């Protein structure tokens, strides 16, 4: 498994505020795989995702991003790794002084790509998430669903190898959550590795009929493979 997985966690523990939040946790995300991460609120889903994109350093154990040990990675290495990992947060943080289109293009800007050459891709992507008409709007003017779709577009504009989504359907209605799920499944069909943290079991059931997904559950600080009850 070592060397082939895009993101790998090996016997990882993470402590915060004196208490251990995650313990002896191992996980391997192979290229093109689809994962759901579930568990009760406060179980550590967001923490696990943060470990996966290098925002947190494990207390013990090893996290490897594209084969590189997180502990030995320089800050620039982490920045480069994040260009290969698209992250969608539940609260969808944007730069409020930039338009939706510019926010979606933000990963291109920070990586020094010429936006003039990327114009067609940006337009196509904005259309793919159904925000072409809202491209010039400012983020505070968007609805919850529009923000989620803009965040997804931003996460995938660099054509990353992995997309990590933290409760991407938390603030949207059922119809919108299905639309977002279809977009993520479509990305998976393009070969992207997807991991979605959610407590929405209905969403997981809906996805399982469309894609081969592994469902992982965090319980008692450990990661378990969820059974057929889902």
């Amino acid at each position: 498994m070592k060397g082939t997985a895009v993101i790998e966690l090996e016997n990882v523990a993470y402590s915060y505020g004196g208490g251990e939040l995650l313990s002896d946790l191992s996980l391997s995300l192979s290229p093109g795989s689809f994962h759901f991460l579930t568990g009760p609120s406060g179980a550590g889903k967001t923490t696990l995702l943060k470990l996966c994109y290098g925002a947190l350093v494990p207390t013990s154990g090893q996290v490897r991003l594209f084969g590189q040990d997180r502990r030995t990675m320089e800050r620039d290495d982490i920045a480069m790794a994040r260009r290969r990992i698209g992250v969608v947060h539940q609260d969808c943080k944007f730069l409020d002084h930039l338009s939706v289109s510019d926010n979606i293009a933000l990963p291109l800007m920070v990586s020094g790509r010429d936006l003039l050459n990327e114009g067609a891709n940006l337009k196509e992507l904005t259309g793919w998430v159904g925000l072409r008409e809202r491209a010039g709007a400012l983020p505070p003017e968007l609805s919850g669903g529009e923000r989620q779709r803009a965040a997804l577009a931003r996460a995938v504009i660099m054509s990353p190898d992995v997309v990590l989504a933290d409760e991407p359907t938390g603030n949207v209605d059922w119809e919108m959550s299905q639309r977002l799920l279809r977009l993520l499944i479509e990305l998976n069909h393009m070969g992207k590795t997807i991991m979605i943290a959610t407590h929405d079991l209905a969403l997981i059931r809906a996805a399982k009929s469309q894609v081969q997904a592994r469902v992982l559950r965090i319980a008692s600080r450990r990661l378990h493979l969820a059974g057929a009850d889902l």
Partner: protein
Amino acid sequence: MKIELSPVTEFLLADAQADRVVPPTGFTAWLTLFSAAAMGFLAVFALALSLATGRLADRWGNELARSSTIRISAPEGQMAAQTEAALRLLETTAGVASARALSSEEEAALLAPWFGPDLPIDTLPIPQLIEVVEEGAGFDAEGLRLRLAAEVPGAVLDDHTRWRRPLVRAAERLRLLGWLSLVLIGAAVAAMITLAANAALAANSQLIGVLRLVGARDTFIARAFVRRFTLRALGGAALGVVLGCLAVLILPGAEAEGGFLTGLGFQGWHWLWPLVIPPLAAMVAFFATRMAAHKTLKDMP
């Protein structure tokens, strides 16, 4: 092949995309602009002080060092004879370029600041003054004193050393104080810019978090802040320098009787010196913000 650019080159080339990611307004923008303008204004005065005291020290050190005075105090009947004897003696003294007795009008002019213009000088026992101008390595003061004592008993040689030295020393201290003020102003600019940059970075911590999340390197984020603060410091200092120069311009002119205070200002090409202040302020801001930004970013995930 990737070309590595120095931070200054990167700054000069500018990155429009990095510029756009930081919101254009904010309290720190005005704080930086005002601080830089105030410091630019003060720097003009510190510079003017340094240059004026420099000129003064040079004048006292060079011009006055080239001249001496012989004072002759003698009974009225002997004054002319002793003056004549002193002038003859000076003509044969090596290192003396010229020597002349001051006229009664010149002596009256010297006393006028203390006694007024209507002083009846002829009725007072005023000593006769002889102005001596040196040449080459100057004369042997001790030898001249001995010869005067022998030939002109009422003559006293004053080579200005006694009062010139402390004045030159004072002027040099003032010049040093001026330069020290400039250094302190530079340090104060660096401190204020650092505080303002830290405040801006703290206020934009969410923005920095988003940029890090999408793969921005620290240099990209730092550059956006560094460029903004540097340009603000440059603009503010330029404004302060213009105001400072106007203030120096409207100072009273350097009248001869005004002495040092009215001579505070720039002369000739020294007016170009204030042009150095804005680029220096920008340079200080560049390094202060760069250091602050990299230090702050290092503590962020």
